[in-house]
Protein backbone atom coordinates (compact mmCIF):
# COMPACT_ATOMS: atom_id res chain seq x y z
CA UNK A 1 0.00 0.00 0.00
CA UNK A 2 1.30 3.42 -0.87
CA UNK A 3 1.28 5.74 2.02
CA UNK A 4 1.46 9.35 1.02
CA UNK A 5 -0.56 10.64 3.88
CA UNK A 6 -3.60 12.69 4.65
CA UNK A 7 -3.85 16.29 3.49
CA UNK A 8 -6.10 18.82 5.25
CA UNK A 9 -7.21 22.26 4.10
CA UNK A 10 -6.41 24.92 6.69
CA UNK A 11 -9.08 27.54 5.99
CA UNK A 12 -8.26 31.05 7.14
CA UNK A 13 -11.33 33.19 7.83
CA UNK A 14 -11.87 36.90 7.22
CA UNK A 15 -10.53 37.74 10.67
CA UNK A 16 -7.27 35.90 9.86
CA UNK A 17 -7.99 32.99 12.16
CA UNK A 18 -7.69 29.37 11.15
CA UNK A 19 -11.23 27.98 11.14
CA UNK A 20 -11.96 25.72 14.12
CA UNK A 21 -13.08 22.92 11.78
CA UNK A 22 -9.43 22.50 10.79
CA UNK A 23 -8.46 21.50 14.34
CA UNK A 24 -11.39 19.10 14.50
CA UNK A 25 -10.21 17.52 11.24
CA UNK A 26 -6.62 17.38 12.48
CA UNK A 27 -7.64 15.33 15.49
CA UNK A 28 -9.72 12.93 13.39
CA UNK A 29 -6.98 12.65 10.77
CA UNK A 30 -4.46 11.56 13.43
CA UNK A 31 -6.86 8.82 14.45
CA UNK A 32 -7.31 7.72 10.79
CA UNK A 33 -3.54 7.82 10.28
CA UNK A 34 -3.09 5.10 12.92
CA UNK A 35 -5.14 2.79 10.72
CA UNK A 36 -2.94 3.72 7.75
CA UNK A 37 0.43 2.72 9.22
CA UNK A 38 0.86 6.17 10.73
CA UNK A 39 0.59 8.02 7.45
CA UNK A 40 1.74 11.63 7.78
CA UNK A 41 -0.92 14.27 8.45
CA UNK A 42 -0.33 17.38 6.37
CA UNK A 43 -1.98 20.73 5.81
CA UNK A 44 -2.17 23.30 3.04
CA UNK A 45 -2.33 26.96 4.05
CA UNK A 46 -2.78 30.20 2.10
CA UNK A 47 -1.80 33.26 4.07
CA UNK A 48 -0.74 36.83 3.70
CA UNK A 49 2.86 37.52 4.75
CA UNK A 50 3.73 37.85 8.42
CA UNK A 51 0.96 35.65 9.75
CA UNK A 52 2.62 32.22 9.82
CA UNK A 53 4.24 32.76 13.22
CA UNK A 54 0.78 33.21 14.72
CA UNK A 55 -0.42 29.99 13.15
CA UNK A 56 2.59 27.79 13.93
CA UNK A 57 1.50 26.69 17.40
CA UNK A 58 -1.88 25.66 16.10
CA UNK A 59 -0.22 23.21 13.74
CA UNK A 60 2.38 21.83 16.15
CA UNK A 61 -0.14 21.35 18.94
CA UNK A 62 -2.65 19.62 16.72
CA UNK A 63 -0.18 17.01 15.47
CA UNK A 64 0.40 18.20 11.89
CA UNK A 65 3.59 16.72 10.44
CA UNK A 66 3.97 18.99 7.46
CA UNK A 67 2.43 22.27 6.30
CA UNK A 68 2.60 23.51 2.72
CA UNK A 69 2.59 27.29 2.98
CA UNK A 70 1.58 29.64 0.17
CA UNK A 71 2.35 33.22 1.18
CA UNK A 72 1.38 36.37 -0.67
CA UNK A 73 -0.42 39.68 -0.08
CA UNK A 74 -3.10 38.57 -2.52
CA UNK A 75 -4.14 35.66 -0.28
CA UNK A 76 -5.81 38.28 1.87
CA UNK A 77 -9.03 37.26 0.20
CA UNK A 78 -10.19 33.86 -0.96
CA UNK A 79 -10.44 33.19 -4.68
CA UNK A 80 -11.98 29.92 -5.83
CA UNK A 81 -9.93 29.49 -8.97
CA UNK A 82 -6.57 30.62 -7.56
CA UNK A 83 -6.81 28.37 -4.52
CA UNK A 84 -8.19 25.43 -6.48
CA UNK A 85 -5.45 25.55 -9.11
CA UNK A 86 -2.64 25.73 -6.57
CA UNK A 87 -4.08 22.85 -4.55
CA UNK A 88 -4.59 20.78 -7.72
CA UNK A 89 -0.88 21.18 -8.54
CA UNK A 90 0.14 20.38 -4.97
CA UNK A 91 -1.95 17.21 -4.96
CA UNK A 92 -0.44 16.12 -8.28
CA UNK A 93 2.98 16.60 -6.72
CA UNK A 94 2.52 14.95 -3.30
CA UNK A 95 -0.29 12.49 -4.22
CA UNK A 96 -2.01 12.16 -0.84
CA UNK A 97 -4.27 9.18 -0.15
CA UNK A 98 -6.92 11.38 1.42
CA UNK A 99 -7.78 15.10 1.23
CA UNK A 100 -10.20 16.51 3.82
CA UNK A 101 -11.83 19.94 3.83
CA UNK A 102 -14.22 21.58 6.30
CA UNK A 103 -17.78 21.77 4.94
CA UNK A 104 -17.92 25.54 5.38
CA UNK A 105 -19.16 27.90 2.66
CA UNK A 106 -15.58 28.21 1.44
CA UNK A 107 -14.81 24.49 1.70
CA UNK A 108 -17.92 23.50 -0.19
CA UNK A 109 -17.16 26.10 -2.87
CA UNK A 110 -13.57 24.93 -3.25
CA UNK A 111 -13.65 21.13 -2.91
CA UNK A 112 -15.75 20.16 -5.99
CA UNK A 113 -13.53 22.30 -8.24
CA UNK A 114 -10.50 20.36 -7.09
CA UNK A 115 -12.11 16.92 -7.25
CA UNK A 116 -13.54 17.46 -10.72
CA UNK A 117 -10.22 18.68 -12.11
CA UNK A 118 -8.45 15.65 -10.59
CA UNK A 119 -11.28 13.38 -11.79
CA UNK A 120 -11.64 11.96 -8.32
CA UNK A 121 -14.57 11.41 -5.97
CA UNK A 122 -15.79 13.79 -3.31
CA UNK A 123 -18.26 13.07 -0.52
CA UNK A 124 -20.11 16.11 0.79
CA UNK A 125 -20.83 17.30 4.30
CA UNK A 126 -19.77 14.15 6.17
CA UNK A 127 -20.57 13.50 9.80
CA UNK A 128 -18.27 10.52 10.30
CA UNK A 129 -15.04 9.15 8.85
CA UNK A 130 -13.32 5.82 9.21
CA UNK A 131 -10.81 3.58 7.45
CA UNK A 132 -12.30 0.28 6.30
CA UNK A 133 -10.62 -3.15 6.28
CA UNK A 134 -9.19 -2.42 2.80
CA UNK A 135 -7.61 0.80 3.98
CA UNK A 136 -10.19 2.96 2.16
CA UNK A 137 -11.79 6.10 3.53
CA UNK A 138 -15.38 5.35 4.57
CA UNK A 139 -17.23 8.66 4.71
CA UNK A 140 -20.71 8.79 6.22
CA UNK A 141 -23.16 11.56 5.41
CA UNK A 142 -26.86 12.31 5.83
CA UNK A 143 -29.06 12.39 2.72
CA UNK A 144 -32.74 13.15 2.22
CA UNK A 145 -32.64 15.82 4.89
CA UNK A 146 -31.11 13.46 7.40
CA UNK A 147 -33.63 10.66 6.93
CA UNK A 148 -31.01 8.29 5.64
CA UNK A 149 -27.31 7.89 6.31
CA UNK A 150 -25.02 6.72 3.53
CA UNK A 151 -21.46 5.46 3.89
CA UNK A 152 -19.56 6.28 0.73
CA UNK A 153 -16.29 4.90 -0.63
CA UNK A 154 -14.12 6.34 -3.38
CA UNK A 155 -12.34 4.31 -6.07
CA UNK A 156 -9.87 7.01 -7.03
CA UNK A 157 -7.13 9.00 -5.28
CA UNK A 158 -7.10 11.23 -3.44
CA UNK A 159 -10.26 10.19 -1.65
CA UNK A 160 -11.87 13.54 -0.89
CA UNK A 161 -14.53 14.60 1.59
CA UNK A 162 -15.90 17.78 3.11
CA UNK A 163 -16.71 17.45 6.82
CA UNK A 164 -19.40 19.32 8.70
CA UNK A 165 -18.02 21.58 11.44
CA UNK A 166 -18.51 20.52 15.06
CA UNK A 167 -18.96 16.79 14.45
CA UNK A 168 -15.44 16.00 15.67
CA UNK A 169 -13.71 17.52 18.67
CA UNK A 170 -10.28 19.12 18.56
CA UNK A 171 -7.57 17.32 20.52
CA UNK A 172 -7.29 17.94 24.25
CA UNK A 173 -3.95 16.17 24.54
CA UNK A 174 -0.79 18.13 24.83
CA UNK A 175 0.92 17.11 21.63
CA UNK A 176 4.00 18.79 20.34
CA UNK A 177 4.87 17.75 16.83
CA UNK A 178 8.01 18.64 14.95
CA UNK A 179 6.09 20.32 12.16
CA UNK A 180 7.88 20.98 8.87
CA UNK A 181 6.80 24.22 7.23
CA UNK A 182 7.45 24.07 3.51
CA UNK A 183 7.11 27.28 1.52
CA UNK A 184 5.70 26.75 -1.93
CA UNK A 185 6.47 29.23 -4.71
CA UNK A 186 3.72 31.55 -5.89
CA UNK A 187 3.80 33.32 -9.25
CA UNK A 188 1.78 36.29 -10.50
CA UNK A 189 0.04 34.17 -13.11
CA UNK A 190 -1.31 31.95 -10.32
CA UNK A 191 -3.69 34.72 -9.34
CA UNK A 192 -6.98 34.60 -11.20
CA UNK A 193 -9.41 37.38 -10.47
CA UNK A 194 -12.48 36.56 -12.52
CA UNK A 195 -14.84 37.19 -9.62
CA UNK A 196 -14.33 40.62 -8.09
CA UNK A 197 -15.41 41.42 -4.58
CA UNK A 198 -17.22 44.77 -4.69
CA UNK A 199 -18.42 44.98 -1.12
CA UNK A 200 -18.72 42.91 2.04
CA UNK A 201 -21.37 43.58 4.64
CA UNK A 202 -20.66 41.82 7.91
CA UNK A 203 -23.80 40.16 9.03
CA UNK A 204 -25.48 37.34 10.79
CA UNK A 205 -22.14 35.98 11.99
CA UNK A 206 -22.51 37.24 15.54
CA UNK A 207 -25.71 35.34 16.16
CA UNK A 208 -24.34 32.20 14.57
CA UNK A 209 -21.17 32.35 16.61
CA UNK A 210 -23.28 32.59 19.72
CA UNK A 211 -24.85 29.26 18.83
CA UNK A 212 -21.40 27.87 18.08
CA UNK A 213 -19.91 28.71 21.44
CA UNK A 214 -22.97 28.67 23.73
CA UNK A 215 -22.84 26.27 26.68
CA UNK A 216 -26.61 26.43 27.01
CA UNK A 217 -29.10 26.62 24.15
CA UNK A 218 -32.83 27.05 24.72
CA UNK A 219 -34.58 26.18 21.47
CA UNK A 220 -38.21 26.46 20.47
CA UNK A 221 -40.38 24.75 17.91
CA UNK A 222 -43.73 25.28 16.25
CA UNK A 223 -45.45 24.73 19.60
CA UNK A 224 -44.11 28.07 20.88
CA UNK A 225 -47.01 29.50 18.85
CA UNK A 226 -45.67 33.04 18.36
CA UNK A 227 -42.78 35.47 18.55
CA UNK A 228 -43.87 36.21 22.12
CA UNK A 229 -43.31 32.54 22.90
CA UNK A 230 -39.71 33.03 21.84
CA UNK A 231 -39.34 36.09 24.07
CA UNK A 232 -40.09 33.81 26.99
CA UNK A 233 -37.35 31.44 25.81
CA UNK A 234 -34.97 34.39 25.54
CA UNK A 235 -35.64 35.23 29.16
CA UNK A 236 -34.87 31.67 30.18
CA UNK A 237 -31.73 31.57 28.05
CA UNK A 238 -30.49 34.85 29.60
CA UNK A 239 -30.98 33.45 33.11
CA UNK A 240 -28.91 30.40 32.15
CA UNK A 241 -26.22 32.43 30.39
CA UNK A 242 -27.19 30.83 27.10
CA UNK A 243 -28.71 31.71 23.77
CA UNK A 244 -31.85 30.92 21.79
CA UNK A 245 -32.22 28.54 18.85
CA UNK A 246 -35.19 27.43 16.75
CA UNK A 247 -36.42 24.51 14.73
CA UNK A 248 -37.20 24.91 11.06
CA UNK A 249 -40.92 24.69 11.79
CA UNK A 250 -40.74 27.76 14.02
CA UNK A 251 -38.59 29.65 11.51
CA UNK A 252 -40.93 28.84 8.62
CA UNK A 253 -43.86 30.24 10.61
CA UNK A 254 -41.92 33.43 11.30
CA UNK A 255 -41.63 32.98 15.09
CA UNK A 256 -37.84 33.15 14.94
CA UNK A 257 -35.23 34.38 12.42
CA UNK A 258 -33.54 31.99 9.98
CA UNK A 259 -30.14 32.84 11.47
CA UNK A 260 -30.85 30.83 14.62
CA UNK A 261 -32.20 27.75 12.87
CA UNK A 262 -30.74 24.48 14.11
CA UNK A 263 -30.73 21.21 12.19
CA UNK A 264 -30.02 19.80 8.75
CA UNK A 265 -30.61 23.07 6.91
CA UNK A 266 -29.35 25.20 9.78
CA UNK A 267 -26.64 24.91 12.39
CA UNK A 268 -25.15 21.87 14.07
CA UNK A 269 -24.67 22.66 17.76
CA UNK A 270 -22.79 21.00 20.62
CA UNK A 271 -23.68 22.77 23.88
CA UNK A 272 -23.38 21.32 27.37
CA UNK A 273 -27.13 21.66 27.76
CA UNK A 274 -29.82 21.81 25.10
CA UNK A 275 -33.36 22.56 26.20
CA UNK A 276 -35.90 21.72 23.47
CA UNK A 277 -39.19 23.52 24.07
CA UNK A 278 -42.23 22.34 22.12
CA UNK A 279 -40.06 20.82 19.41
CA UNK A 280 -41.52 17.60 18.03
CA UNK A 281 -38.09 16.32 17.05
CA UNK A 282 -38.15 15.58 13.32
CA UNK A 283 -34.92 13.95 12.23
CA UNK A 284 -34.06 17.13 10.26
CA UNK A 285 -33.84 18.91 13.59
CA UNK A 286 -32.29 16.21 15.76
CA UNK A 287 -29.30 15.64 13.42
CA UNK A 288 -28.19 19.11 14.46
CA UNK A 289 -28.36 18.57 18.23
CA UNK A 290 -27.25 15.02 19.02
CA UNK A 291 -23.74 16.23 19.80
CA UNK A 292 -25.08 18.06 22.86
CA UNK A 293 -23.88 16.72 26.24
CA UNK A 294 -27.35 16.76 27.77
CA UNK A 295 -30.74 17.27 26.16
CA UNK A 296 -33.82 18.22 28.17
CA UNK A 297 -37.06 18.39 26.27
CA UNK A 298 -40.49 19.72 27.13
CA UNK A 299 -43.41 18.59 24.99
CA UNK A 300 -47.06 17.89 25.70
CA UNK A 301 -47.11 14.88 23.36
CA UNK A 302 -45.71 11.86 25.23
CA UNK A 303 -44.94 10.21 21.88
CA UNK A 304 -43.01 13.13 20.38
CA UNK A 305 -39.82 11.78 18.75
CA UNK A 306 -37.75 14.46 20.54
CA UNK A 307 -37.89 12.26 23.65
CA UNK A 308 -36.00 9.53 21.77
CA UNK A 309 -32.91 11.70 21.63
CA UNK A 310 -33.36 13.36 25.03
CA UNK A 311 -31.77 12.54 28.36
CA UNK A 312 -34.53 14.14 30.38
CA UNK A 313 -38.06 14.52 29.10
CA UNK A 314 -40.88 16.53 30.60
CA UNK A 315 -44.27 15.59 29.21
CA UNK A 316 -46.06 18.82 29.94
CA UNK A 317 -47.15 22.23 28.74
CA UNK A 318 -44.23 24.46 27.89
CA UNK A 319 -46.31 27.54 28.84
CA UNK A 320 -46.62 26.18 32.37
CA UNK A 321 -43.16 24.69 32.81
CA UNK A 322 -41.02 27.49 31.39
CA UNK A 323 -42.59 30.44 33.30
CA UNK A 324 -42.30 28.46 36.51
CA UNK A 325 -38.69 27.60 35.80
CA UNK A 326 -37.97 31.27 35.12
CA UNK A 327 -39.58 32.12 38.44
CA UNK A 328 -37.42 29.57 40.30
CA UNK A 329 -34.26 30.77 38.61
CA UNK A 330 -35.01 34.41 39.48
CA UNK A 331 -35.22 33.63 43.17
Amino acid sequence: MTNNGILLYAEVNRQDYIHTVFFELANKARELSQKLENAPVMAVLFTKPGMLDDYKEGFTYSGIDKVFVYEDERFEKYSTETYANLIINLIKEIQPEIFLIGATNQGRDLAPRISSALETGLTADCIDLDINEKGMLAATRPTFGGQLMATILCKTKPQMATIRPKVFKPTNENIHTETDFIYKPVKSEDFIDNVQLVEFIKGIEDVKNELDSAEVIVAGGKGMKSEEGFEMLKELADLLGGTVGASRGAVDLGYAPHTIQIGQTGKTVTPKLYIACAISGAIQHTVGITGSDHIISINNDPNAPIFDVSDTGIVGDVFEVVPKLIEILKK
Partner: protein
Amino acid sequence: MKIALCVKQVPDTSDIKWTENNTMQREGVESIINPYDLYATEIALQLKKLCNAEITVFTMGPLQASEMLKEVIAVGADNGVLISDRKFAGADTFATGKTLSAAIKKVLPDFDYIICGQFAIDGDTAQTGPCIAGLLNIPQVTYVKEVVKCEGSEITLSRILEDGVEKVKVNSPALLCVLKSEFEPTRALINGIIKAQDSNIKTLTLDDLDLSAEDVGIKGSPTYVSKAFRPEIKHNCEKHMCLENCSGAEIIHSKIKEIGVLNDE
Protein backbone atom coordinates in the same frame (compact mmCIF):
# COMPACT_ATOMS: atom_id res chain seq x y z
CA MET B 1 -27.12 36.69 -23.44
CA LYS B 2 -27.53 32.92 -23.39
CA ILE B 3 -28.29 31.01 -20.23
CA ALA B 4 -28.09 27.29 -19.52
CA LEU B 5 -30.35 26.61 -16.55
CA CYS B 6 -29.81 23.22 -14.85
CA VAL B 7 -32.69 21.71 -12.87
CA LYS B 8 -33.25 18.38 -11.19
CA GLN B 9 -36.27 16.27 -10.45
CA VAL B 10 -36.23 14.99 -6.88
CA PRO B 11 -38.47 12.58 -4.98
CA ASP B 12 -41.30 14.38 -3.22
CA THR B 13 -41.77 12.11 -0.27
CA SER B 14 -39.83 10.31 2.40
CA ASP B 15 -40.71 7.16 0.48
CA ILE B 16 -37.17 6.13 -0.33
CA LYS B 17 -36.46 3.00 -2.35
CA TRP B 18 -33.00 1.65 -3.08
CA THR B 19 -31.73 -0.69 -5.77
CA GLU B 20 -29.46 -3.66 -5.10
CA ASN B 21 -26.50 -1.40 -5.81
CA ASN B 22 -27.61 0.99 -3.08
CA THR B 23 -28.51 3.70 -5.54
CA MET B 24 -31.88 5.34 -5.58
CA GLN B 25 -34.83 3.88 -7.43
CA ARG B 26 -36.25 6.90 -9.23
CA GLU B 27 -38.87 5.52 -11.55
CA GLY B 28 -42.37 5.25 -10.16
CA VAL B 29 -41.70 7.70 -7.30
CA GLU B 30 -43.68 10.96 -7.19
CA SER B 31 -41.32 13.72 -8.30
CA ILE B 32 -41.07 17.49 -7.94
CA ILE B 33 -38.65 20.11 -9.17
CA ASN B 34 -35.88 20.62 -6.61
CA PRO B 35 -37.00 23.70 -4.58
CA TYR B 36 -33.59 25.40 -4.93
CA ASP B 37 -33.91 25.11 -8.71
CA LEU B 38 -37.08 27.22 -8.58
CA TYR B 39 -34.89 30.07 -7.30
CA ALA B 40 -32.20 29.31 -9.89
CA THR B 41 -35.04 29.75 -12.39
CA GLU B 42 -35.93 33.10 -10.75
CA ILE B 43 -32.36 34.34 -11.26
CA ALA B 44 -32.50 33.23 -14.91
CA LEU B 45 -35.83 35.07 -15.33
CA GLN B 46 -34.35 38.20 -13.72
CA LEU B 47 -31.50 38.11 -16.24
CA LYS B 48 -34.01 37.58 -19.02
CA LYS B 49 -35.81 40.73 -17.95
CA LEU B 50 -32.68 42.82 -17.22
CA CYS B 51 -30.53 41.86 -20.16
CA ASN B 52 -32.71 40.02 -22.57
CA ALA B 53 -31.34 36.59 -21.87
CA GLU B 54 -32.50 33.49 -23.69
CA ILE B 55 -32.96 30.55 -21.32
CA THR B 56 -32.35 26.91 -22.22
CA VAL B 57 -33.28 24.59 -19.39
CA PHE B 58 -31.38 21.29 -19.02
CA THR B 59 -32.10 18.26 -16.90
CA MET B 60 -30.63 14.79 -16.62
CA GLY B 61 -33.19 12.19 -15.67
CA PRO B 62 -35.80 9.69 -16.81
CA LEU B 63 -38.19 10.49 -19.68
CA GLN B 64 -40.87 11.73 -17.28
CA ALA B 65 -38.56 14.66 -16.40
CA SER B 66 -39.58 16.35 -19.65
CA GLU B 67 -42.82 17.36 -17.86
CA MET B 68 -40.74 19.35 -15.39
CA LEU B 69 -38.89 21.03 -18.26
CA LYS B 70 -42.28 22.11 -19.60
CA GLU B 71 -43.15 23.60 -16.22
CA VAL B 72 -39.97 25.70 -16.39
CA ILE B 73 -40.78 26.74 -19.95
CA ALA B 74 -44.27 27.72 -18.75
CA VAL B 75 -42.77 30.26 -16.33
CA GLY B 76 -40.53 31.76 -18.99
CA ALA B 77 -37.67 29.53 -20.16
CA ASP B 78 -37.32 29.35 -23.93
CA ASN B 79 -36.07 25.86 -24.75
CA GLY B 80 -35.75 22.52 -22.98
CA VAL B 81 -33.14 19.77 -23.18
CA LEU B 82 -33.66 16.36 -21.62
CA ILE B 83 -30.52 14.27 -21.15
CA SER B 84 -31.77 10.75 -20.73
CA ASP B 85 -30.22 7.35 -21.12
CA ARG B 86 -30.27 4.21 -18.99
CA LYS B 87 -26.48 4.36 -19.04
CA PHE B 88 -26.62 7.59 -16.98
CA ALA B 89 -28.23 5.79 -14.04
CA GLY B 90 -26.42 5.71 -10.71
CA ALA B 91 -24.22 8.72 -11.50
CA ASP B 92 -22.51 10.48 -8.60
CA THR B 93 -21.89 14.25 -8.62
CA PHE B 94 -18.77 13.93 -10.77
CA ALA B 95 -20.41 11.77 -13.46
CA THR B 96 -23.48 14.03 -13.36
CA GLY B 97 -21.30 17.11 -13.77
CA LYS B 98 -19.48 15.50 -16.66
CA THR B 99 -22.72 14.55 -18.44
CA LEU B 100 -24.32 17.98 -17.93
CA SER B 101 -21.23 19.86 -19.04
CA ALA B 102 -20.96 17.68 -22.18
CA ALA B 103 -24.63 18.38 -22.99
CA ILE B 104 -24.20 22.14 -22.48
CA LYS B 105 -21.10 22.12 -24.71
CA LYS B 106 -23.08 20.28 -27.37
CA VAL B 107 -26.31 22.29 -27.37
CA LEU B 108 -25.23 25.72 -26.12
CA PRO B 109 -21.46 26.07 -26.63
CA ASP B 110 -21.73 29.88 -26.67
CA PHE B 111 -23.51 30.14 -23.30
CA ASP B 112 -22.87 33.18 -21.11
CA TYR B 113 -24.05 31.82 -17.78
CA ILE B 114 -24.87 28.42 -16.37
CA ILE B 115 -27.29 28.64 -13.45
CA CYS B 116 -27.92 25.84 -10.93
CA GLY B 117 -29.59 25.51 -7.54
CA GLN B 118 -27.08 25.51 -4.67
CA PHE B 119 -28.36 22.21 -3.23
CA ALA B 120 -30.69 19.42 -4.26
CA ILE B 121 -32.91 18.36 -1.38
CA ASP B 122 -32.35 14.63 -1.96
CA GLY B 123 -28.57 14.52 -1.94
CA ASP B 124 -27.71 17.86 -0.26
CA THR B 125 -24.24 17.71 -1.80
CA ALA B 126 -23.99 21.18 -3.41
CA GLN B 127 -21.29 19.69 -5.64
CA THR B 128 -22.71 19.31 -9.13
CA GLY B 129 -22.63 23.05 -9.93
CA PRO B 130 -18.98 23.64 -9.00
CA CYS B 131 -18.10 20.32 -10.71
CA ILE B 132 -19.54 21.63 -13.99
CA ALA B 133 -17.64 24.92 -13.55
CA GLY B 134 -14.43 23.00 -12.81
CA LEU B 135 -14.83 20.73 -15.83
CA LEU B 136 -15.55 23.66 -18.15
CA ASN B 137 -12.85 25.70 -16.43
CA ILE B 138 -15.04 28.78 -15.97
CA PRO B 139 -15.44 31.01 -12.87
CA GLN B 140 -18.16 30.16 -10.36
CA VAL B 141 -20.21 32.19 -7.90
CA THR B 142 -21.88 30.07 -5.20
CA TYR B 143 -24.54 31.00 -2.58
CA VAL B 144 -26.13 33.56 -4.91
CA LYS B 145 -29.14 35.40 -3.53
CA GLU B 146 -29.93 38.14 -6.05
CA VAL B 147 -28.92 39.82 -9.26
CA VAL B 148 -28.03 43.38 -8.31
CA LYS B 149 -27.12 44.69 -11.73
CA CYS B 150 -26.58 43.57 -15.30
CA GLU B 151 -24.41 45.63 -17.66
CA GLY B 152 -23.76 43.99 -20.99
CA SER B 153 -22.33 40.59 -20.21
CA GLU B 154 -21.15 41.65 -16.74
CA ILE B 155 -23.40 40.98 -13.76
CA THR B 156 -23.27 41.98 -10.10
CA LEU B 157 -24.63 39.47 -7.61
CA SER B 158 -25.16 39.27 -3.88
CA ARG B 159 -24.09 36.10 -2.05
CA ILE B 160 -25.11 35.06 1.44
CA LEU B 161 -22.28 33.58 3.49
CA GLU B 162 -21.76 32.40 7.07
CA ASP B 163 -20.27 35.73 8.11
CA GLY B 164 -22.22 38.20 6.01
CA VAL B 165 -23.21 39.30 2.53
CA GLU B 166 -20.82 39.73 -0.37
CA LYS B 167 -21.46 41.73 -3.49
CA VAL B 168 -19.42 40.38 -6.40
CA LYS B 169 -18.99 41.20 -10.07
CA VAL B 170 -18.39 38.58 -12.72
CA ASN B 171 -18.16 38.50 -16.49
CA SER B 172 -19.34 35.74 -18.79
CA PRO B 173 -18.84 32.85 -19.13
CA ALA B 174 -19.45 31.81 -15.52
CA LEU B 175 -21.55 29.47 -13.42
CA LEU B 176 -23.90 30.56 -10.61
CA CYS B 177 -25.29 28.41 -7.76
CA VAL B 178 -28.45 29.88 -6.26
CA LEU B 179 -29.84 29.74 -2.70
CA LYS B 180 -33.48 29.62 -1.72
CA SER B 181 -35.26 32.89 -0.91
CA GLU B 182 -38.28 33.75 1.18
CA PHE B 183 -40.49 34.95 -1.66
CA GLU B 184 -42.87 32.70 -3.60
CA PRO B 185 -41.41 31.68 -6.96
CA THR B 186 -43.15 32.80 -10.17
CA ARG B 187 -46.26 30.88 -11.13
CA ALA B 188 -47.06 29.94 -14.70
CA LEU B 189 -49.68 32.02 -16.51
CA ILE B 190 -52.14 30.48 -18.93
CA ASN B 191 -50.30 31.56 -22.10
CA GLY B 192 -47.07 30.22 -20.62
CA ILE B 193 -48.71 26.87 -20.11
CA ILE B 194 -50.02 26.86 -23.68
CA LYS B 195 -46.57 27.78 -25.00
CA ALA B 196 -45.02 25.00 -22.93
CA GLN B 197 -47.41 22.40 -24.29
CA ASP B 198 -46.40 23.28 -27.83
CA SER B 199 -42.71 23.49 -27.02
CA ASN B 200 -40.26 21.04 -28.42
CA ILE B 201 -38.06 19.31 -25.85
CA LYS B 202 -34.78 18.18 -27.33
CA THR B 203 -33.68 14.78 -26.05
CA LEU B 204 -30.02 13.77 -25.86
CA THR B 205 -28.75 10.25 -25.23
CA LEU B 206 -25.19 9.12 -24.61
CA ASP B 207 -24.67 8.74 -28.38
CA ASP B 208 -25.30 12.48 -28.83
CA LEU B 209 -22.53 13.46 -26.41
CA ASP B 210 -18.77 13.35 -26.77
CA LEU B 211 -18.51 10.85 -23.93
CA SER B 212 -18.12 7.11 -23.68
CA ALA B 213 -20.07 4.67 -21.50
CA GLU B 214 -17.08 4.66 -19.10
CA ASP B 215 -17.58 8.39 -18.42
CA VAL B 216 -21.18 8.22 -17.24
CA GLY B 217 -23.53 6.56 -14.75
CA ILE B 218 -22.17 4.10 -12.22
CA LYS B 219 -19.13 3.35 -14.38
CA GLY B 220 -18.11 6.99 -14.55
CA SER B 221 -18.63 7.58 -10.84
CA PRO B 222 -15.55 7.56 -8.58
CA THR B 223 -17.73 7.24 -5.48
CA TYR B 224 -20.24 4.58 -4.52
CA VAL B 225 -22.55 3.90 -1.62
CA SER B 226 -21.28 0.97 0.41
CA LYS B 227 -23.98 1.14 3.02
CA ALA B 228 -27.25 3.03 3.53
CA PHE B 229 -28.93 2.95 6.90
CA ARG B 230 -31.41 4.74 9.11
CA PRO B 231 -29.83 6.91 11.80
CA GLU B 232 -29.62 5.31 15.22
CA ILE B 233 -31.50 6.59 18.20
CA LYS B 234 -29.06 6.98 21.03
CA HIS B 235 -30.68 7.70 24.35
CA ASN B 236 -32.72 6.21 27.12
CA CYS B 237 -34.84 9.14 28.08
CA GLU B 238 -35.76 9.69 31.69
CA LYS B 239 -39.34 10.75 31.05
CA HIS B 240 -41.50 12.58 33.59
CA MET B 241 -45.25 12.81 33.13
CA CYS B 242 -46.35 16.25 34.23
CA LEU B 243 -49.45 17.04 32.23
CA GLU B 244 -51.31 17.62 35.48
CA ASN B 245 -49.89 18.79 38.75
CA CYS B 246 -46.75 19.77 36.99
CA SER B 247 -43.42 19.65 38.80
CA GLY B 248 -41.53 19.83 35.51
CA ALA B 249 -39.88 23.14 36.37
CA GLU B 250 -38.44 21.74 39.60
CA ILE B 251 -37.15 18.63 37.83
CA ILE B 252 -35.43 20.74 35.18
CA HIS B 253 -34.03 23.07 37.80
CA SER B 254 -32.37 20.25 39.73
CA LYS B 255 -31.07 18.72 36.48
CA ILE B 256 -29.55 22.05 35.47
CA LYS B 257 -27.79 22.27 38.85
CA GLU B 258 -26.56 18.70 38.48
CA ILE B 259 -25.13 19.38 35.01
CA GLY B 260 -23.32 22.37 36.47
CA VAL B 261 -24.16 25.07 33.96
CA LEU B 262 -25.67 27.15 36.72
CA ASN B 263 -23.57 29.14 39.16
CA ASP B 264 -25.17 28.01 42.37
CA GLU B 265 -24.72 30.11 45.46
